[in-house]
């Protein structure tokens, strides 16, 4: 594994629990949308902790790499990022890894992306990649979050949708009594998935599901129940 020492150039709050950390690498390493990077922290006595985070920036953006990190209160690495890391800090990052959960423009569409909470990060990379590369492949993002305070990248994704060039988005909030206009209420279920599949202009080519394990299990099962071939479903589970 190749490691580089990156510099934190910017920290942007994305939601109540998620902040984006922007890193400048000495040498940009090409990657595919959907891949992740390993962050490695080292204590003075040599003790190390490392965790994987999906890349949120597009492969076309070579000036920095963006990782959207959710603060898990019982975590070891994410609280450190939220409480200690400042602009200018040096952090060790791996080269991009992961080869099954990727989407390139040549993979085409229609594709359905189903994200729960911070599980939207790899899809932000895919949507940005699609836009920057000028692809018109049909792509529908189904995003589930808890409340309006947990919406991530909402303005940017709405802007991409408003281009009406084949990128579409459905957002649903699970713990919001009266969601804002254009956002639905409730959990992703068989009906949500069937409606999303029906909204695509043709048979789905691939479904990507990312989030916590219960979220992914649930969404995958509903997709299979809706008649999707299991082999078309790629999953990325945020375990710990």
């Amino acid at each position, binding site marked *: 594994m190749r490691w580089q020492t990156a510099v934190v150039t910017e920290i942007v709050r994305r939601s109540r629990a998620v902040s984006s950390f922007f890193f400048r690498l000495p040498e940009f390493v090409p990657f595919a949308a959907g891949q992740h990077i390993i962050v490695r922290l080292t204590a003075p006595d040599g003790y190390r902790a490392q965790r994987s985070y999906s890349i949120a920036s597009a492969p076309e953006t070579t000036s920095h790499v963006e990782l959207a990190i959710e603060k898990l209160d019982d975590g070891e690495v994410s609280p450190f990022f939220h409480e200690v890391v400042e602009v200018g800090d040096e*952090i060790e990052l791996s080269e991009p890894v992961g080869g099954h959960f990727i989407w390139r423009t040549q993979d085409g569409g229609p594709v359905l992306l189903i994200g729960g909470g911070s599980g939207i990060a790899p899809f932000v990379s895919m949507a940005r990649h699609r836009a920057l590369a000028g692809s018109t492949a049909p792509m529908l993002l189904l995003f589930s979050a808890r409340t309006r305070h947990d919406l991530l990248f909402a303005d940017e994704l709405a802007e991409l949708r408003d281009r009406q060039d084949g990128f579409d988005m459905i957002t649903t909030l699970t713990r919001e009594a009266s969601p804002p206009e254009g956002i639905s209420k409730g959990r992703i279920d068989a009906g949500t998935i069937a409606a999303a599949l029906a909204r695509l202009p043709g048979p789905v080519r691939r479904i990507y599901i990312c989030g916590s394990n219960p979220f992914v299990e649930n969404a995958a099962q509903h997709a299979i129940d809706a008649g999707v071939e299991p082999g078309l479903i790629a999953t990325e589970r945020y375990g710990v």
Partner: protein
Amino acid sequence: MATRGFTGRRGGSEETRERLPPGQFLESGFPVLSAGPTPRIQTDKWTFTLKDGVRPVKRWNWDEFNALPQTKMTRDIHCVTTWSKFDTAWQGVLVDDILADAGIEPPTGFTLAHSFDGYTTNVPTADLLGGKAMVALRYEGKPIAPDHGGPARLLVPHLYFWKSAKWVNGLQFTQKDELGFWELRGYHRYGDPWQEQRYTND
């Protein structure tokens, strides 16, 4: 390079720290990771096939397989994503006993494990023998949950846990070391946690 302000949350006794391979932390839960949806496999449709190259040597159905001698094994397991879990208790059929029932000696030094969902992973044959590995049928005294690889998963606890293929449905001896699903996607060919062999060139 030390990371500014990072001390880590080591915790645990000295014994715990000595049992953890480098770069791992102790997890009390049992996280689930896999590249696709969880297949729902009915045991009346379940089969396990032993192959030498393309040639099937023997095939067992669920009842036949469960009738083979079963062994209990309690081991620490180590996931490449850096969590470890101590003292996981499994029961199943040792690979030694599978070969004995098929009446063969291992024909080659390389094995590829296959799963119902198309997943594959390569393990040197020597790492599957001598009581080191089993096809596990029970976890903590109960049938293995589908998202943890049930009804049957390979258990090779001395290697990173992606080698312990979920939903295993066969072992295939190969003439050369053929890479499996993750091994073709940047992960280490062998995967020894104590050598921290996580990625291809580690």
